[in-house]
């Protein structure tokens, strides 16, 4: 295992000890539990999450300042939620001094770039107190998800209880108990194009990052990365927020995380390189080289 998993201090398999949180959490309820703990302890005074939006399964970036509001944001919505758009506003109209934020690996990159290069993010850099990253292979535009659910899975968006990507399939669970699985070869063409140049699978730049891959159903794989993340995670464990198992003792374990990370990074690195010779003597832009 090389650099594909980023730097981390510890990695465990974990699950929230709150039955209430787990009822509607996507996986082990790590995101919601850790924010709820940080909120109650005053480590953060609000968190930017992706709450429910105007249409079914359409996310809306949202500043949650109560545990109740965090509860409403549980679960994964597989389409774009520009959470970082609220990072300055959270310190303004919401008046937060200590911000939590959850996001995909690219959103964690955005947050860290914004701390080192805050062109337009006045007085934000030292207010970001807990950045939780979620693993991400790819994301979708809203209309893609709609087509997958309505055209391919033949379900109504409003009657879907949960969506999940795992075990090589896109799963759609209906309210009435029906389950439809779509092979990923069907979903690929609907992916957000910009995901194909993304070189991070497990949110390397988060304080704490988490996802389902590597752990058994209902559990999450957790990487504790920064000093700050380590500090908060250790306290949350001491407070009994999570039950944990050593990652070495669970199946499928880190090996699968590494494998998927390498696959993603390898494939996307090729896309980045192919952009250099995309046209006839004309390249597409490479953001990793220059603006």
């Amino acid at each position, binding site marked *: 295992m090389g650099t594909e998993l*980023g730097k981390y201090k510890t990695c465990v398999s974990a699950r929230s000890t709150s039955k209430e949180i787990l009822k509607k959490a996507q996986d082990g309820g790590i995101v919601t539990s850790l924010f709820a703990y940080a909120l109650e302890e005053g480590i953060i005074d609000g968190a930017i999450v992706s709450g429910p939006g105007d249409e079914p399964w359409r996310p809306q970036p949202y500043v949650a300042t109560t545990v109740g509001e965090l509860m409403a944001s549980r679960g994964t919505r597989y389409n774009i939620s520009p959470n970082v758009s609220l990072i300055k506003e959270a310190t303004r109209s919401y008046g937060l001094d200590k911000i939590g934020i959850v996001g995909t690996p690219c959103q964690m990159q955005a947050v860290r770039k914004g701390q080192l290069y805050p062109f337009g993010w006045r007085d934000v850099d030292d207010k970001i107190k807990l950045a939780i990253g979620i693993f991400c292979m790819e994301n979708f535009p809203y209309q893609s998800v709609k087509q997958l659910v309505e055209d391919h899975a033949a379900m109504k968006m409003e009657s879907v209880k949960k969506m999940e990507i795992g075990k090589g399939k896109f799963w759609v669970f209906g309210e009435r108990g029906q389950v439809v699985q779509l092979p990923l070869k069907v979903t690929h063409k609907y992916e957000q194009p910009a995901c194909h140049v993304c070189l991070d699978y497990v949110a390397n730049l988060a304080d704490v990052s988490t996802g389902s891959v590597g752990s058994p159903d209902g559990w999450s794989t957790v990487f504790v990365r920064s000093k700050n993340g380590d500090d908060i995670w250790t306290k949350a464990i001491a407070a009994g927020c999570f039950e944990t198992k050593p990652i070495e003792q669970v199946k499928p374990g880190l090996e699968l995380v590494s494998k998927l990370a390498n696959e993603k990074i390898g494939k996307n690195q090729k896309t980045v390189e192919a952009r250099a010779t995309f046209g006839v003597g004309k390249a597409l832009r490479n953001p990793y080289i220059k603006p």
Partner: protein
Amino acid sequence: MADKITVGHVHMSGCTGCLVSLADNYGGLLTILDRYADLVYGLTLADVRHIPKMDVALVEGSVCIQDKLAVEEIKETREKAAVVVAVGGCACYGNITRFSRGGQPNQPQHESFLPIGDLIKVDVYIPGCAPCPQMIRNVCVMAYLLLKGNKEQKELATKFLTPLMQLAERGTEACGCDLMYDVVNQGLCMGCGSCAAACPVRAITHEYGKPNVNREMCIKCGACYAQCPRSFFNFDVVPEFEAIMEAIGAALK
């Protein structure tokens, strides 16, 4: 510390907002002036009439080409300063002064304003209106490390400043439209929202995860594109955010 760098603030046609933003580092600014930089020029801050030799010129504002003195001064700045930094949207891109058509008393003939890069070579860009205090601070600390630091510090400062030098090479025009031209049209926008958070006039909203710029509101400051992680993302700098932020914090303690 004896080995300070010399810095000047050169005021072209700008609103002084960039200078205020620098000053909004409060104690941090005093520490910078105390330990790292001597302010050798600055209209409101230093009693010096002519642009002296200096290591770093922080230039605020665009140049009115009908104002002879301004044109002379920007050229002189280039001659006297080892490093010229365009601080803020007006110096980098013209920003709000792009909309000037003259007609203001008491110099109605002053109608044409150009970003400084249209008249001189500029080394470093800090887009934004105004660029945040923390951004100006970080560039000041890095400029110091570049000129006076040890080998590792010089390397870090070079890596940190490289994208800002590349922005300076990229050109003197900016607009919210850059998000379309150079990010969305290039298949690079992943919908993070950074651009909207950077816009000083709230011209950017997100529709189904992608930026939508209200072009009537855009003042052409360039903050959104610079802030976008898909304009530049340097893997040799950003992942070191923890250590770099600590180092900057320690330097200003």
